[in-house]
């Protein structure tokens, strides 16, 4: 089914989550299952999904307002209604869905997740509410070449990395070369630009593409598959038996009344709404929101990054060995681990102890990260100030603090201004990583627009231009201040 977890990321997240919650977890493991009770008491069912996957879940642009719709959303609505609670939807990158429920960020995850045995070891699943089946997308011009999956022998096949489709193509299509990518939108683009011959994808999604793009055709996969490998189920934290049982009652009704057919039809209508007008201008509110969040995160993180960087840099000049050691370890550790992991650690790891919203988590992680880099830049800047300056300050009887504040740091900042500018510019670009925890920054919004409009390239171009406008504006501002400081010197 949909993309499965990247093993490495999951391992790191789980280890970090375990580290933080080990004590908490062991003391609660034997406790009674209160999952259903908790949801009822709260009066809300918090469901997490990744709305970039029509027809399962996607954003629709209706009268200028964006709304999350799709078959899975209808399933979640039905579940919440049957439980007599309010439905609260949270969006997040697919990679992070299972971690979100494991760490208690949400009660339930939905999103075309197939309940494989591997996943069953870490989370509980409801009954399967929908079985999609597998198929291949091909270019229309190739219909005669690839009449059925048998003709794909020796072809280059694309699939989402780590998914079922990826494994199946490798195992079942003889002599094939399988190319993996992260997003189905990218894969469709690869198909259309002939980088791959066929794209292994599940049937409802393939149907959606074929309906919206005449240059694509669908052929059946011809795979014989076990139900667990093709069905979609809802995921819950381990030990949520009472909640799973309650949800299964809704699943039974959905199966009996064939409600998914109705839901899919509704989703299809929404998809037409989306594709009526696929001009980027029509989606400007999406991009505007993305720019807003990207700027917000960058500005806040720049501010706190500089504050932290100054503190860390000054700690490096402390007389106390342990203070210096602390600053060095922090800097080395932060620089030695990827920002992506830090973002997930703050949101999921620390989030278990204190529940921090995604946006704040993103800002914290990016600030902490930037602080380490800024600290090194400032340290270099402080070292670049001539010793004569500190000697003059000392001979006047200035305290170390005053010397730093009035003499050294102002000069250091002037010397490092270009390097700091680089750091701020890369912050705007690197902050895009927060999209994995569902912060609606420009990258996140870009992927939503791509999924909604079935247009692979134009949204990327728009985002590229927007990023450039932001960084270019920042460069102009920085140059302006650099000029001012030069004048003062």
């Amino acid at each position, binding site marked *: 089914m949909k993309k499965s977890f990247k093993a490495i990321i999951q391992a790191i997240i789980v280890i970090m989550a375990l580290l933080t919650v080990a004590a908490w977890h062991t003391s609660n493991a034997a406790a009674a299952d209160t999952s259903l009770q908790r949801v009822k008491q709260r009066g809300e069912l918090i469901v997490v999904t990744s709305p970039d996957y029509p027809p399962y879940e996607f954003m629709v642009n209706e009268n200028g307002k964006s709304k999350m719709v799709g078959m899975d959303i209808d399933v979640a609505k039905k579940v919440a209604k049957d439980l007599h609670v309010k439905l609260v939807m949270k969006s997040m990158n697919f990679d992070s869905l299972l971690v979100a429920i494991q760490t208690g960020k949400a009660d339930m995850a939905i999103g075309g997740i197939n309940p494989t045995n591997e996943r069953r070891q870490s989370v509980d699943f409801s009954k399967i509410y929908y079985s999609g089946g597998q198929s291949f997308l091909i270019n229309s011009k190739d219909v005669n070449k690839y009449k059925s999956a048998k003709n794909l022998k020796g072809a280059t096949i694309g699939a989402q990395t780590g998914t079922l489709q990826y494994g199946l193509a490798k195992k079942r299509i003889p002599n094939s070369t399988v190319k993996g990518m992260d997003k189905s939108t990218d894969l469709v683009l690869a198909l259309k630009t002939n980088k791959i011959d066929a794209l292994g994808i599940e049937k409802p999604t393939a149907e959606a593409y074929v309906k919206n793009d005449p240059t694509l055709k669908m052929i059946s996969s011809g795979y014989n598959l076990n139900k667990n490998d093709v069905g979609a189920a809802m995921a819950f934290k381990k030990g949520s038996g009472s909640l799973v049982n309650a949800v299964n009652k809704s699943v039974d009704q959905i199966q009996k009344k064939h409600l998914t057919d109705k839901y899919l039809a509704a989703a299809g209508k929404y998809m037409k709404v989306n594709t009526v007008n696929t001009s980027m201008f029509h989606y400007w509110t999406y991009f505007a929101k993305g720019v807003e969040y990207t700027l917000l995160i960058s500005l806040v993180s720049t501010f706190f990054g500089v504050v932290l960087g100054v503190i860390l840099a000054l700690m490096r000049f402390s007389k106390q060995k342990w203070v210096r050691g602390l600053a060095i370890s922090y800097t080395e550790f932060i620089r030695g681990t990827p920002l992506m992991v830090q973002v997930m650690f703050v949101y999921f790891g620390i989030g278990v102890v204190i529940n921090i919203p995604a946006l704040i988590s993103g800002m914290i992680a990016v600030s902490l990260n930037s602080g380490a880099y800024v600290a090194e830049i400032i340290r270099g800047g402080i070292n670049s100030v001539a010793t004569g300056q500190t*000697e003059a300050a000392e*001979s006047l009887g*200035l*305290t170390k603090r005053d010397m730093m504040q009035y003499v050294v740091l102002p000069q250091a900042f002037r010397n490092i201004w270009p390097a700091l500018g680089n750091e701020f510019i890369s912050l705007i670009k690197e902050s895009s990583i927060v999209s994995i925890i569902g912060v609606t920054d420009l990258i996140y919004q870009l992927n939503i627009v791509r999924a909604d409009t079935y247009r692979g390239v134009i949204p990327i171009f728009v985002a590229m231009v927007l990023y450039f406008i932001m960084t270019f504006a920042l460069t102009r501002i920085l140059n302006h201040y650099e000029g001012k400081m030069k004048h003062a010197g």
Partner: protein
Amino acid sequence: MQDKKVIEVNHLSKKFGETDVLKDINGTVKSGQVICVIGPSGAGKSTFLRCLNLLEKPTSGEVKFDGTDLTHVSSKQLLDLRERMGMVFQSFNLFPNMTVLKNLMLAPIRVKHMSEAEAEKTAIALLDRVGLKEKANAYPSSLSGGQQQRVAIARALAMNPEVMLFDEPTSALDPEMVGEVLEVMQELANEGMTMVVVTHEMGFAKSVADEVWFMADGYILERSSPDDMFEHPKNDRAKDFIGKIIGSV
């Protein structure tokens, strides 16, 4: 008052790694005295001067200022004592991020807790004294070397010090600017300021100094009046040095 010992140095030595830069230096500077320290380069003159306000930490020996041994005080006390000693550097070391006026006002406000208005008044008066009142709002980089050094002297004077230490104040200047700086220093000496001046300006030493100390190889080899030093040096190294200097002029 004339006999009050302001600075007293006993058995001062300083090593940089394995190199002995200063070896058993002794000396006394009395209130109102102007001491000029001369000698070949590498003699340890600057290091000696920098030991007087502990910019260099002596390896052994004591440096007494107004009776207090600076080598055995807390860093807080050291700050208090340092503000009573002004220092002027070869390379001026004005703060380039501040205007001339702010350069003069910083320490009085931060260290002496003077009010902004009072500090500004004092600063303007001092700038007037060194002939640079009109440069109050200029940045140091727009001044000539001679002007910068005069501002540096004014900055040190703004703290109303009891002693002024000069570390080759004219060595980094173009020849035509040396005069204006020496003039300011001469006035200062005439007003009775206690001064220790490391210099290569023999004319200045001759006319202003009360005592000239000749240093070579980390020792003070001779100390005498300017007349004796320049006319009848006793030490052979001093003779040699003075001979070369006079010969070259």
